[in-house]
Each structure stands twice: as C-alpha cells, then as structure tokens.
C-alpha cells in the first residue's frame, strides 16, 4: 500500500507527462497540416510528369536502344532497397512498420538467392534494421538537419542512387515509404524506381501525337533521372505527412492513457486519505470508550 505522499508524487509526474504528450500532439497536428499541404502541392507536378513519361516510355520502351534506367540492366541479381523513415521516434508504429516491410522484402529476396543492398534515409530506419541487415548497408542519408524537406534533398538522394546504378552496383532499386491515407492510417509501401515503370492514368495517354524536341530518346534520357528524383521526392513528402499523422494519433492515445491513469490514482489517493481519517476516528472513539 503506497503512502499518501507516494501517490501524490505519482499523480504529479503523470500529470506532467500528460502535458508533454499533449504538447507533442498539438505540434504534430500543426506540422501535419504543413506536411499535407506540401504533399498536395507536389501532386500536380508528379501527375503530369508521370503522364508524359508514360507516353514516352510506351513509344520508346520496346526498342533496344532504350535507356538502361527504363529497360533495366537485363538481370535482377542485385537489389537496392532504399528505406525511407523518420529521423525521430515517438510516432507509434510508423518507423517499425516501414522497417518490417523492408525486412520482409529483404528476406524474400535473399531466399530467392538475390543479393540485397540497403540504403537508409532517416536515422530510425537505420537503427531498426541494423541488427538484421547491418552487413548489407551501403549508405545512409541524414536529413535531421533539414527542417523542411525540399526537392534539393530528393535530388541529392537520386544522384547518389544514380551514381551507384551507373557504377553497376545494383540492377533493381525499390523505395520504401509510408503512404499517407489519413491521420490514423498510413500504409507502408514498396515502389520500384529502377527500372522505371510508369502507369498511365486512364484516358490521359491516349490523345495527341507529340512532336519531340530534341528526339524522343534524348528527352527520355534527360527525364528519367529527374523521374527518379520526383518519385523519391513524393515518397519523402508522403513520409513526412505520415510521420506527423502517426505521431499525432500516438500522442493522442498517450494523452488519453495518462488522463485515465490520473483518474485512477486520484481515486486511490482519496480512498487511502479517507482510510487514514477513519482510522484516526476509530482510535479516538475507542480511546474515549476505554475511560
């Protein structure tokens, strides 16, 4: 049976925990709105880009001279997994869900006799995968210094990946990120970026036949590296929104739990306070009776 003083201290400490989680929730909510706006702002670009690429890829894709980024290297022996996670924790299952998907995929590939290489973006994913895939790490990108993720960050990552691709370090690249559906739902997603695959939206690719200036293949060669950057950028933005969403709901739960705990402790505190008073009364009464 804890003493009254113990209970009081515990109530106080849970109360300050609740204050912190509440504050974190509100910060996450504000950041979420910004992250969502950023994700929405980037959508028109990605959508048009994909539409144009789909058209180009369809007309050039089949030929022998198509760029390697589109056609692939002709083998699928070495896979590069680009695992994009958050730099911070305390956001529920966000980081571990992405890590779990990546781990699963890596195990699958290894079972099929393929070589797996891992490039991590974000500290938390690196920590989560260190034990299982630590020997497969080929690099790490730290984004903790950037308050707001810009296209330049995505370009840096894309450049790193493309340099490795040109050096023949891998054949297939897949990015892992979390797709933002709403505040409570984020879906860990794997998307293959090299060789590139573009899905034409219904009814958009059919249409005018374009003139290309310069030729189709040059344009394609120019645009494919940008496509990698674009895909990484939208992955990063989805991730940003997902992270804040996950943190918001995790912190909401934590705040509610803390509230429940405070209620329970307060009841316990009042009961034992009353017990002490009753005890004292009994002592006084029985003392009086004894006289």
């Amino acid at each position, binding site marked *: 049976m804890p003493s009254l003083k113990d209970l009081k201290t515990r109530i106080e400490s849970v109360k300050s925990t609740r204050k912190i989680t509440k504050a974190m929730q509100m910060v996450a909510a504000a950041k979420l709105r910004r992250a969502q706006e950023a994700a929405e702002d980037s959508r028109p670009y990605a959508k048009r880009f994909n539409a144009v690429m789909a058209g180009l890829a369809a007309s050039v894709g089949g030929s022998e001279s198509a760029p390697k980024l589109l056609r692939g290297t002709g083998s699928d022996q070495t896979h590069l997994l680009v695992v994009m996670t958050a730099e911070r924790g305390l956001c529920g299952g966000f980081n571990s869900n992405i890590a779990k998907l990546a781990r699963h995929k890596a195990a699958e590939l290894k079972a099929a006799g393929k070589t797996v290489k891992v490039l991590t973006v974000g500290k938390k994913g690196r920590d989560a995968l260190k034990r299982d895939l630590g020997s497969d790490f080929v690099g790490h990108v730290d984004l903790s210094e950037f308050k707001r993720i810009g296209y330049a960050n*995505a370009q840096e990552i894309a450049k790193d990946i493309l340099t490795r691709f040109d050096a023949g370090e891998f054949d297939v690249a897949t990015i892992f990120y979390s797709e933002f559906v709403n505040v409570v739902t984020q879906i860990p997603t794997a998307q293959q970026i090299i060789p590139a695959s573009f899905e034409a939206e219904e009814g958009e690719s059919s249409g005018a036949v374009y003139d290309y200036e310069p030729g189709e293949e040059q344009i394609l060669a120019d645009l494919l590296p940008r496509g990698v950057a674009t895909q990484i950028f939208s992955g990063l933005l989805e991730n940003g929104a997902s992270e804040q969403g996950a943190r918001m709901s995790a912190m909401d739960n934590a705040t509610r739990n803390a509230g429940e705990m405070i209620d329970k402790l307060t009841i316990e505190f009042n009961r034992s306070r009353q017990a002490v008073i009753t005890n004292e009364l009994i002592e006084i009464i029985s003392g009086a009776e004894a006289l």
Partner: protein
Amino acid sequence: MAQTMQFDLVSPERALASLQASAVQIPGSEGDMTAMPQHAPTITTLRPGVLKVESPEGNSEYLVTGGFAEIAGDSLSVLAERAIPMAEMTRDQMNTLIEEAREMYKTAKEEDQPHGLVEDAAKLLADMEALGTHMSL
C-alpha cells in the same frame, strides 16, 4: 487575337501559375520558341532561361532552370525543376544559382563522369552566366 489557352507552371514543390495565356515564350533546349493557342502538340526540354507569359491580364516572367514543357493545342504545361518569378529575383539569388552551376561543373570535371555530364554542366554554367548578364540586375 482573343484566343487563349490554359497555361500551367508547376515545380516539384508547388504550382506557381495557372492562368489563361495568349502566348508563352519557352526557352527550349534547342532554341526559344513561342507557343500560342493551336500550336502543334510538342514536348521539349528546357534550358535555364526566362519564360515569358502573355495573357489578357498582363505579362509575367519567370526564371526557370531546366525541366520540360508539354504543349497540347489548347493547353501548355511547363514542368520546371526550379522556377522563380522574375519580380522576386535578386542579384544575390542569381549569384547563388551561378555558383551552384559552377560547383557542379567542377565536381563533374573532377570525377570525370560519363553520360556527357561534364558538357551538360558546362552548358548549364554558360546558360546561367548569360542569363545573369541578360538580366543585368
């Protein structure tokens, strides 16, 4: 001519403009071209340069650094890597851009990268510098 077409300028980070334009001058990689309504469907890559938009409401200019433009008869979409409205442009920003291009050229030359990246970077640098003089900020 009262005819107009839908003009969209988007960068990866945000959509910058969406309006009805009567003519748009595009800095294409193989030379400038002006797109007007009913232009033949064309896709062209961009070089760093100035994008001039003429619309019934007035003219506007944007600085773009690479990307591509999609012309489709009654609409024109420019997808630029980076686009800055000319009105917001300052000498300092231009210098930063030139500096970036120079840096890229240097690293490309040192690392001896394939794919004609060195020439690309050199061209980018030249374009940037020309742009800086042209603007005479």
